[in-house]
């Protein structure tokens, strides 16, 4: 794996990769599952460096992460010192901003008690003008009928407490039956959960149906 590719993956996670390079890298990610697994790890390690792992703690976790990092010495976070310093600076400045926000919130609360109620975030959402971010999206192209999406791949991902870990597939019920219930259920899910469920319906690799028990 070239140093350039490592840098590109790292920049993608940090939102610093130019749009043209992003498109090329994403195409490559589709073809190379090992690269995709590495992207997930970069996100995870980036989170760790930024301190976004509040739910799992303890020496066991530290040892496992440290073991995973050592096992993958050529692949994982061995960023240059400047990069680490930048991440720490970002984390520290984040804390400073958070402290500032807390102080301002207190002031706002006091003002709110003597004047109008504080407006929520929803009220602050700008209306009207469309917001454009990232690269433009083209309408879907017509694809050939009957071509099945191929997503079944093997990865050599180490045990991780941060990246989505492979889980055993429960496929006792026939897949079409599962999809039927999940679709019906998605109608009553909150939008985020409903989207997640439907994404899985689309993204899940086709699995051969098992006989009814």
């Amino acid at each position: 794996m070239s140093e350039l590719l490592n840098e590109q993956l790292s920049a993608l996670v940090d939102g610093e990769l130019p749009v043209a390079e992003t498109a090329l890298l994403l195409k490559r990610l589709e073809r190379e599952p090992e690269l995709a697994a590495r992207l997930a790890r970069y996100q995870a390690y980036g989170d760790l460096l930024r301190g976004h792992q509040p739910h799992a703690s303890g020496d066991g976790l530290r040892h496992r992460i440290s073991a995973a990092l050592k096992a993958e010495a050529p692949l994982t976070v061995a960023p240059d010192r400047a990069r680490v310093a930048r991440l720490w600076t970002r984390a520290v400045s984040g804390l400073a901003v958070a402290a500032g926000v807390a102080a301002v919130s207190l002031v706002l609360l006091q003002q709110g008690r003597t004047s109008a109620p504080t407006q929520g975030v929803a009220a602050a959402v700008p209306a009207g003008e469309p917001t454009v971010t990232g690269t433009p999206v083209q309408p879907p192209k017509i694809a050939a009928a009957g071509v099945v999406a191929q997503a079944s791949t093997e990865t050599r991902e180490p045990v991780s407490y941060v990246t989505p870990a492979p889980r055993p597939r429960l496929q006792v019920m026939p897949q079409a039956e599962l999809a039927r219930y999940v679709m019906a259920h998605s109608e009553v899910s909150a939008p985020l959960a409903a989207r997640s469920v439907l994404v899985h319906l689309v993204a899940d690799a086709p699995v051969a149906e098992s006989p009814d028990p």
Partner: protein
Amino acid sequence: MTRSLRRRLGVTAGAALSLVWPVVAVIAAESARDWLKAMNDALATKTYQGDFLHIADGHIERLRILHRVRDNEVAEHLLTLAGGGREVLRINGELRCFLPDQQRVLIETEGPSGGLLGTLPSFGAELERNYRLELEGRERSSLGRESRILAVVPRDGYRFGYRLWLDAESKMPVRTDLVDAHGRVLEQLLFTALVVGGSLPDSAFRPSLDATSYTAVRGPASRPTPSGVALDWHLTRVPPGFEVRSVDQQAASDGVEPVTHVVLSDGLAAISVFIEGPPPPPRQAVAGQGRVGTAFLSSRVVSGHQVTAVGEVPLHTVDLIAAGVLPPDAPPGALRAIEPLAQP
């Protein structure tokens, strides 16, 4: 400074902190709730189109979503960018899932609730009982824009949580990590391109594959009848924090008992319990478990009926609920009260 003065200052500072801290906590929680509500509103009410990576189970896939809200009607198209794969279309209250690998199209008609826009959670006080909401800071997202990180941390193992990177301007979740109660990430959705606003033509909501020869299969909640029916079945094992929100009865195919659809919620996660009459031969009610992504299912056969619990919660949660469903004529001894449940 004398020792007594230092002690007095310390006591005063401690007392001041103890007075201020609950206020800070309340402000933080309400602010986090505001962000959560803003995200939910954005997802349900804004027109947007985007490409994103879906990372789970060691797989990565590129997907595209097109979502249009026009005249209070939602149209949505979800497809893989690999082409020719599965697709989901939601148009005018009808959900269609195209499965080219099975040559089938699953059709689900929305219930009387009005679909997506009618089911937004209220994010009330009960949410706080079941989840801890935390604003974790700001960060540049994968789109290179400022985002706010919101953590929705489950208070027990009966539900999942989220860590969300919300775009500071549009409030759209540009990265979503689904996590369990131990903080393990189960899946990630990472937007690489997103356009919020504007308009999408009708042509964007047509399947990109030729499904004319597919077999249509209607879901268990199709052809709904008016809601508000009484639930005569018994749910004896419901995890803490979940409450029954609605009971609907929908006509099934001809000659089959109506399907009862019970919806439970803890303020964020929803669980559906479907109670279906004995299927016509040669079909048989089956018991089993399943998973589609982060939605787990547990099915049981109870008095010849098919009882299925499904939700974006851990398997043991839906398993528990399904195992506790008893028929209307269950003997009084079987209707045991909900016992204290061990922490999973």
